[in-house]
């Protein structure tokens, strides 16, 4: 039932063919793994007769009804580094330092379907060749041979082709991430996704005819999220606002259901990498989208965390023409507003010293009030004690938009000059949707206790002590930095 495979090099992956039955297409899987996984993977535990909940959901509802007989069990591959060994007689995994989870790279389920056999998988981006630097992940628990292992990753699977297409696989990946990351969301299996997309049981091959974007939206609505569709203006080649919003939501830790209608394709955007900082000295405000080198996508044609360029080539972020972001309920202030609001922020420069607008790089994203307080607490030496106290005392709503303003030289060292903390539940028509706007010398603090803002009593300015630093740390806490192995 269990077989250990030691890998001296990627070529040894061809051994999979000797250990796994043909209906799991081990040759094809080995080729993908040899190309996509790094050499840090030195051991694979093959677990046969594995009962996979997602495959079973399609087996009970589709494969078991066919004349051709399909197996009901799967194979699961577990990936380890060189310090892990397997005692075949005792059926025991051991790591030299006793911390097995620290040497575990994740798992991949293989389905007995003869085609597109890679099922539910969670592999760390650390062992994915070419993975981007920042990836949205959740902790996944894995039970094997009496061990409980933990892996940080994003779920992925191949589409089934006959009963589910890329759009179903993408919805599944995002919702499985949500169920692992946030306790308020339940788990949905592969067949559940197919059912959520329709008002009735589509049966048979109907799901293979694809999904409209509205059906993917429906899946996320039915799953208890509040999806927002953002579409690009196809007629406007310079619809930069679309990509700024895309960057903002990914930077907020929300994986995106991204559609490429020119390719009829969907995939999840789950991370990004910055380009090497440039000291251009050129005037003109820039946004974080302008600094993106690659997006990380979970595309069911490839192993997860494929890096695609922001622009150029036959497959890039420029092919994305719409996306769905599955938001929590209490995010009312839309990302659309920031292209207009941010330039106006500089008009408050008379009260709070800000860098010159035409030399600023702007980054904006959503976080929670508690995550922001945690960030400030962990960087408390950067903050004036009175500003820190304000952050701790203000009655934030659950979600905040953060706008970070940096100069080019600060951006290069992950620092910022100023930050606006915006109430994510604010209305579009508010003149002051802010909680805080702070630079290095002053901070504007806003009371939001009244609908009618009283300028004398509902807003105040703090003059801050010099904390002796050049800039504040950029808040990089929503995505996990990849530790390439």
């Amino acid at each position, binding site marked *: 039932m269990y077989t250990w495979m030691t890998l001296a090099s990627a070529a040894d992956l061809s051994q999979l063919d000797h250990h796994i039955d043909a209906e799991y*297409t081990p040759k*094809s899987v080995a*080729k993908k793994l040899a*190309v996509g996984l790094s050499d840090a993977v030195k051991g694979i535990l093959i677990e046969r007769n594995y009962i996979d909940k997602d495959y079973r959901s399609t087996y009970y509802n589709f494969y078991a009804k066919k004349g051709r007989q399909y197996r009901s069990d799967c194979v699961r591959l577990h990936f380890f580094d060189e310090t892990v060994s397997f005692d075949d007689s005792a059926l025991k995994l051991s790591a030299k330092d006793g911390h097995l989870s620290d040497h575990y790279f994740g798992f991949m389920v293989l389905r007995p379907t*003869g*085609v597109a056999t890679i099922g539910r998988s969670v592999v760390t981006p650390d062992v994915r060749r070419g993975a981007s630097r920042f990836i949205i992940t959740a902790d996944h628990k894995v039970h094997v041979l009496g061990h409980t292992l933990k892996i940080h990753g994003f779920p992925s699977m*191949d*589409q089934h*082709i*006959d009963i589910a*297409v*890329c759009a179903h696989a993408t919805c599944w990946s995002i919702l499985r991430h949500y169920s692992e990351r946030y306790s308020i969301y339940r788990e949905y299996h592969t067949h559940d996704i197919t059912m959520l997309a329709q008002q009735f049981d589509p049966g048979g*091959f109907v799901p293979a*005819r*694809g999904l*409209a*974007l*509205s059906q993917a939206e429906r899946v996320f609505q039915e799953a208890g999220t509040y999806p927002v*569709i*953002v*579409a*690009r203006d196809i007629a406007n080649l310079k619809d930069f*606002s679309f990509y700024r919003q895309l960057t903002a939501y990914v930077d907020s830790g929300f994986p995106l259901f991204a*559609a490429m*209608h020119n*390719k*009829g*394709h*969907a995939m999840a955007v789950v991370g990004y990498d910055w380009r090497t900082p440039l000291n251009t000295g050129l005037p003109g405000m820039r946004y974080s989208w302008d600094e993106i080198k690659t997006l990380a996508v979970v595309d069911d044609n490839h192993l997860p965390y494929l890096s695609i360029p922001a622009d150029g080539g036959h497959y890039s972020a420029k092919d994305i023409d*719409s996306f769905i972001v599955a938001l929590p309920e209490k995010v009312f202030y*839309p990302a*659309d*507003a920031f*292209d*207009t609001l941010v330039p*106006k922020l500089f008009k*408050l420069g*008379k*009260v709070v010293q800000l860098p010159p607008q035409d030399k600023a790089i702007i980054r904006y994203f959503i976080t929670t009030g508690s995550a922001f307080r945690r960030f400030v607490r962990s960087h408390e030496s950067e903050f004036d004690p*009175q500003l820190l*106290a*304000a952050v701790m*005392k*203000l009655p934030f709503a659950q979600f905040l938009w953060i706008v970070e303003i940096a100069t080019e030289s600060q951006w290069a060292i992950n620092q910022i000059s100023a930050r606006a903390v915006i109430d994510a539940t604010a209305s*579009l*028509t508010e*003149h002051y949707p802010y909680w805080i706007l702070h630079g290095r010398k002053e901070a*504007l603090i806003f*009371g939001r*206790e*009244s609908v009618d803002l009283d*300028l*004398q*009593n*509902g*807003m*105040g*300015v*703090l*003059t801050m002590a010099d904390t002796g630093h050049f800039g504040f740390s950029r808040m990089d806490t929503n995505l996990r930095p990849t530790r390439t192995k």
Partner: protein
Amino acid sequence: MDKNKPGLFKLVEGLKPVDASALEEYEREMTDEAIPEIIKDVEKRRMLAAESRQRRLETPTTDKPETPTTDEPEQSK
């Protein structure tokens, strides 16, 4: 406003009132330009979303290979 709440100046020590004249330009531009522009942008993006809803993500299943034929993963949809 809830009269029992302490108010911003009691909640946060060291705050001073803001000179209203320093906010005039910001307020005027928010009223005259930014807020109408934001409302227009949101409406325009909502229309684009409505148009995109019926676009399909698919290719005919007959285009898909029975088994993978090359080292490169097939372009499934």
